[in-house]
């Protein structure tokens, strides 16, 4: 029955709710879009709240002039903190933002060259658009978290975007791993990605934060199906078994909670990057949220100090921006699970609320040209615009 509304100084308005009909929520978006003079919105919704076609239909009826990019989630981050089964709409006021968006579908069969060319075209459009005057550009990406195409897409986008900073998240489906959905201006699709190029008069800063302490235990991928992101064997043993042994738990109890609390990381260029496990199959193989390959050496790690490292990162960003007005965040679903596991769920939720982080729970996060796991990536908007008024 209620729809929460939060207006930020930078010209963004967030609407969120769970116990109302999709039609009522769409009507609220329609009213708010007119009131805030916003012609573009990003919408993150749980499949528990509604199905994509219903949302598209409700928006067509209630907010006919609004352009929007939407995706399904694995949890939401509302202005009140962590949420589940919700819907969150982020409206960009035309006074400060100008958004150009495009959808790439059939990711499995799309050529990277086409994508890079389309991005370059979108970039020209965004650079030419005069809606928000002379601000700076950033890119937001929403991508099907089950498409297994994030690495290819972020690489292709990087070709076209070059130095325009990109952040994004992989759409989820509440850990069902069946189907995620994306919508751009009423057009729904899976195996798809939406790229938004935003010209912003509001100062911003993109960031990523993660927290891993590697152990000495190594797992070498000895047999795998890279296309399916499936590892059959670690160290010449069935993957699930080898992993369970390495983290010291019973293979039968393996699940998202254990993957969240015992991530495996790969060392590239002197730093560790998490390669998150998505699920365990009955044959003892493991599917990942990201690309894997034979011979990749994974290190078992512990995600220690998430609260501290997240707080430190947000503090540093706030210092650089002169105060955070709003963070649009892409928060890995495994962080949330790990937080629950460690009884720091409320602390993180409070930290997000205090720092005005809103966004959704992802199956993977994109930062510049990288596809990452078990991180928080995001874009923070400063308060300078507030002072300018």
């Amino acid at each position, binding site marked *: 029955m209620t729809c929460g509304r939060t207006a930020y100084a930078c010209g963004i308005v967030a609407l969120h709710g769970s116990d109302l009909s999709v039609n009522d929520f769409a009507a609220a978006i329609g009213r708010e879009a007119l009131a805030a003079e916003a012609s573009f919105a990003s919408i993150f919704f749980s499949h528990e709240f509604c199905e994509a076609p219903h949302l598209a239909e409700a928006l067509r009826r209630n907010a006919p002039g609004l352009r929007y990019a939407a995706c399904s989630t694995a949890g939401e981050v509302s202005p009140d903190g962590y949420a589940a089964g919700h819907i969150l709409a982020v409206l960009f006021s035309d006074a400060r933002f100008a958004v150009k968006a495009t959808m790439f579908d059939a990711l499995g069969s799309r050529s990277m060259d086409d994508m890079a060319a389309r991005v370059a075209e979108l970039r020209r459009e965004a650079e030419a658009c005069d809606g928000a005057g002379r601000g700076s550009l950033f890119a937001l990406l929403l991508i099907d978290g089950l498409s297994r195409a994030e690495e290819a897409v972020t690489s292709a986008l990087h070709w076209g975007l070059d130095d325009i900073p990109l952040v994004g998240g992989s759409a989820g489906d509440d850990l069902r791993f069946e189907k995620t959905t994306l919508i751009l201006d009423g057009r729904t699709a899976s195996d798809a990605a939406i790229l938004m190029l935003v010209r912003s008069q509001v100062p911003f800063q993109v960031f990523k934060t993660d927290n891993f302490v590697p152990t000495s235990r190594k797992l070498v991928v000895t047999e795998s199906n890279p296309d399916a992101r499936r590892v059959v064997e670690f160290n010449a043993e069935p993957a699930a078994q080898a992993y369970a042994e390495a983290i010291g738990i019973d293979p039968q109890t393996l699940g998202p909670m254990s993957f969240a609390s015992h991530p495996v990381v790969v060392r*590239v260029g002197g730093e560790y990057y998490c390669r998150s496990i998505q699920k365990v199959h009955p044959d003892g193989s493991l599917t990942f949220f990201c690309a894997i*390959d034979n*011979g990749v050496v994974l290190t078992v790690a512990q995600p220690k100090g998430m609260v501290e490292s997240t707080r430190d990162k947000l503090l540093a960003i706030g210092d650089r921006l002169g105060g955070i007005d709003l963070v649009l965040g892409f928060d890995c679903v495994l962080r949330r699970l790990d937080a629950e596991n460690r009884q720091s769920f409320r602390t993180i939720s409070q930290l997000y609320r205090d720092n005005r982080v809103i966004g959704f729970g992802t199956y993977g996060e994109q930062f510049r040209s*990288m596809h990452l796991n078990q991180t928080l990536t995001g874009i923070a908007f400063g308060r300078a615009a507030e002072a300018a008024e």
Partner: protein
Amino acid sequence: MARGPLEKLERINAALMERVERSMDQQGNAFSLFQTAIGLETRMRQRTDELAATLRRLEQSNRALNQAKEAAERANLSKTRFLAAASHDVLQPLNAAILSVSALIELQTSERGHQLVRQVEQSLSTMDELLRTLIDISKLDGGVMRPEVAPVPLGALLESLRSDFAPIAAERELALKVRPNDHFVLSDRTMLRRILQNILSNALRYTARGGVLVGARRRGGLLSVEVIDTGKGIPPDQYETVFEEFHRGLASPGADGGRPAGLGLGLAIVRRMVQALDHDLSFASQVGRGTHFRLLLPLADMAVAVAEPRRKPPADPVAHHFAETRVLVLENDRPVMQAMAALLEGWRCSARLASSSAEGFELLEEVGWTPDLVLADQHLDGGDLGLDAVELLRDRLGWQVPAIIITADPSPDIVVRASLLGAEVMRKPLKPAELRALMAHLLARKKRKRASVWHRAARR
């Protein structure tokens, strides 16, 4: 399914080797894209560092550039000074030479001697003209000569051009007509005079029969000054090149008694001045029929023209004493007259030239122009004497205008008459430095006397 430890190690080893080999391949799969992305990220950070370093270097080179710019500005300033000095130092000895040569003429007794001296004089004045023009061009190009735009009474300017060119036109039996007008235009007086003078000079030079008509008419808010000749015209293939340096048309036969056809710099300097003033110059021409030049000038509002005092030219370290001093030159020898005018112009005097006392009186009719000083050659056209002319002028003016009589032969008679008149006598050949010193002395004395002069003017 159970494997021995050795077999496991072998499989791990094989997987690692395969991985290492694959990482050498160019063909990437998704995982290598991830690796590449991280590599990109690392490179991006490096690039950021490089950019920061580049920025620092840029800042440094900006500072260096600024220093260089300041040095260049200083150099430009010294170039300005050099040009000012050059125009003075190069032209002054030349003018002195011309003045000396004019004295030399009077000492010649043989026809052959006269002829030789005339030729030397001719060459010197050509050199003078060439140097002057080259200096002007470099001043214009160097941005040293900047227009000082003010309302200019066009009628007076055209009339003074007419009187300058009338002798040349008469000599060549050409008609020179200037239609009177009373418009004020917005321009730089000196540059505008030069532009019209060069156009007029060309028109006369390339006209054998008929003559030149100068007139002005309104065109909206603009005034179109037209110089129309019945000369040989400009062939179409030269339309582009007439304004280029050292372009010369074929002078009309018999023009100017053997004078060269000009230096080909006249229109080059016209073009530069027109550009500097942002005026509009165009021409139409028909070979064998004549050429019609049209200069479009902005009209000045009369009220503004009267209300707005003429801006003083910037102080010239060389000759600021004489700024705006009005000098009437009575001299019948044309090259000497020009040399004198050049000298005075170099001292920033405003000089008017006349070859007889009658012509001098005509000049006085021009509104608002009375001389601060008179320079008179003792021997003038029509048998006039300089001393007589000065006496008549003083009567006309109603006050004892300072005067300098110039003569090659200062007989006791002349000296006595001059001292009775209170006029100074200078001997040919004139030395510019002496002339300048004497002028400064007379003008300073005049300034002290000015109050009483005004009283007298008021009583009349």
